[in-house]
């Protein structure tokens, strides 16, 4: 499959801390690529570095063969990368409708159709259309964050720990939604919940102490207990 996003030897500093110390990563078109690793390994920083929110100190990032590591965040978003942060980034004082409207670059027929599609994926959002984002439950906020990223024609979605803090029933809903979204776009997923990651991921990249330590097909990781035990503390 065609390569969509490629990170080569990414180094990122936040203040005096050297967080990413050599990230190699590739996401292919039509796949769900999962970033795995223990807490503090550098998964969230990797997504933020791709988005330009914590810019790389060195290394290169290519998206559809275009070098993007020096671009500002808004340009990265506009070339087709959607982002769902770990804290969901909901605009608490805006309604569900307004949250989606802010995200929608142009109110074209196509965008409105995507909005309708998103609302069929997350029917709860329709129910709370006029409710302030800050008053939604954790699961509903997650749905809104994903809907907001999906409402534009993003070629790639970066989703950071969508199952975090959610009840099992909600995790299942989010998982189903991601599988549905996968039919229309490629996804890079950061996930601590290995069950969820293994169900929806096609490939995995293991990160440890800010470095890529292993990459491969998800099936390979599922059957490798040593690797899971060493880097994820499971199995």
């Amino acid at each position: 499959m065609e390569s969509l996003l490629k990170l080569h030897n990414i180094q990122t500093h936040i203040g005096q801390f050297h967080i990413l110390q050599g990230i190699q990563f590739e996401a292919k078109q039509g796949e769900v690529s999962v970033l795995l690793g223990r807490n503090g390994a550098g998964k969230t920083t990797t997504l933020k570095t791709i988005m330009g929110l914590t810019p790389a100190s060195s290394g290169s990032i290519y998206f559809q063969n275009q070098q993007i590591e020096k671009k500002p965040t808004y340009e990265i978003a506009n070339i087709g990368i959607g982002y769902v942060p770990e804290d969901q980034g909901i605009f608490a004082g805006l309604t569900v409708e307004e949250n989606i409207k802010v995200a929608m670059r142009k109110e074209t027929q196509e965008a409105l159709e995507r909005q309708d599609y998103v609302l069929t994926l997350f029917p709860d959002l329709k129910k709370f259309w006029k409710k302030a984002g800050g008053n939604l439950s954790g699961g509903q906020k997650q749905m809104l964050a994903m809907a907001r990223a999906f409402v534009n024609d993003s070629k790639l979605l970066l989703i950071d720990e969508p199952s975090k803090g959610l009840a099992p029933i909600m995790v299942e809903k989010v998982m189903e939604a991601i599988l549905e979204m996968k039919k229309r776009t490629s996804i890079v997923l950061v996930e601590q919940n290995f069950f969820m990651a293994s169900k929806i991921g096609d490939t995995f990249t293991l990160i440890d102490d800010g470095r890529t330590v292993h990459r491969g097909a998800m099936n390979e990781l599922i059957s490798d207990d040593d690797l899971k035990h060493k880097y994820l503390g499971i199995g």
Partner: protein
Amino acid sequence: MDLLISLVINGLATGMLIFLLAAGLTLIFGLMDVLNFAHGGLFVWGAYTGVLTYTYTESFIIGILVAILTGVVLGFIMEKLIITPVYGNHVQQILITLGFMLVLQEMIKVAFGPNAIPVKVPELLAGSWELGELIIIKYRIFIIVVGFLVFGIFHFILTRTKIGLIVRAGVMNKEMVQALGINIKKVFLFVFMTGAALAAIGGMLMAPYSGSIYAEMGMEFAILGFIVVVIGGMGSFSGSLLAAILVGLAGSFMAYYVPFLSLAVNMILMAVVLIFRPQGLFRTAKE
């Protein structure tokens, strides 16, 4: 009753002038997290350029337009040269904007002289209406109408338009707005220029109200503007209107009934609000 109405009209007119200054301050602070102590300088430059144009052309409307233009241009220069390097650092913002305030104030003296310049109320708005014992000064009603009009327009823009939505979203989460593909720097610049234009309009409207303009008027009014922003809730546009009206009315009533407290009333009001509602009267947009 006539006295009461008179005091209310005086208070509302003063409140609206403070609101025009505070509205810009609160937008700039709310969205950009910038403490702009040079805001009073924009107010006074708006007053001077507007008044001189008004004197020269004898058109108050052209005077207002020139004041707005002055605010927009100064706002652009200031954001690009003074504010951009100090984003995210409050101490540096206070120092550099206070310094720039003094520069703007002294430049007024260099360009227009140190003496106060008298300003007359435009003919159409001069004089008063007499309703029995009650005398209503036309210009004060004009200021109140303009104040509410500005509030209405900005409230509409903030709540009903895409740019307003982006500004409100930016106040809540700048990082996320950028991640949605919006150039927040452009939004910052737009907000700063708008805030500067509001201050300049305030200065221009203040001129005939106070009867003269002088270089230090910006600093005096800026302090009132900051008090209003704190009372209203930092970043809250509606809070600024309510707080400005409160400050205006308190000043008007105290000056009549308890004159020796009239200078302290704003500080007392701010202290009371801070004790009981440290976040201000209105919820800030960030909340």
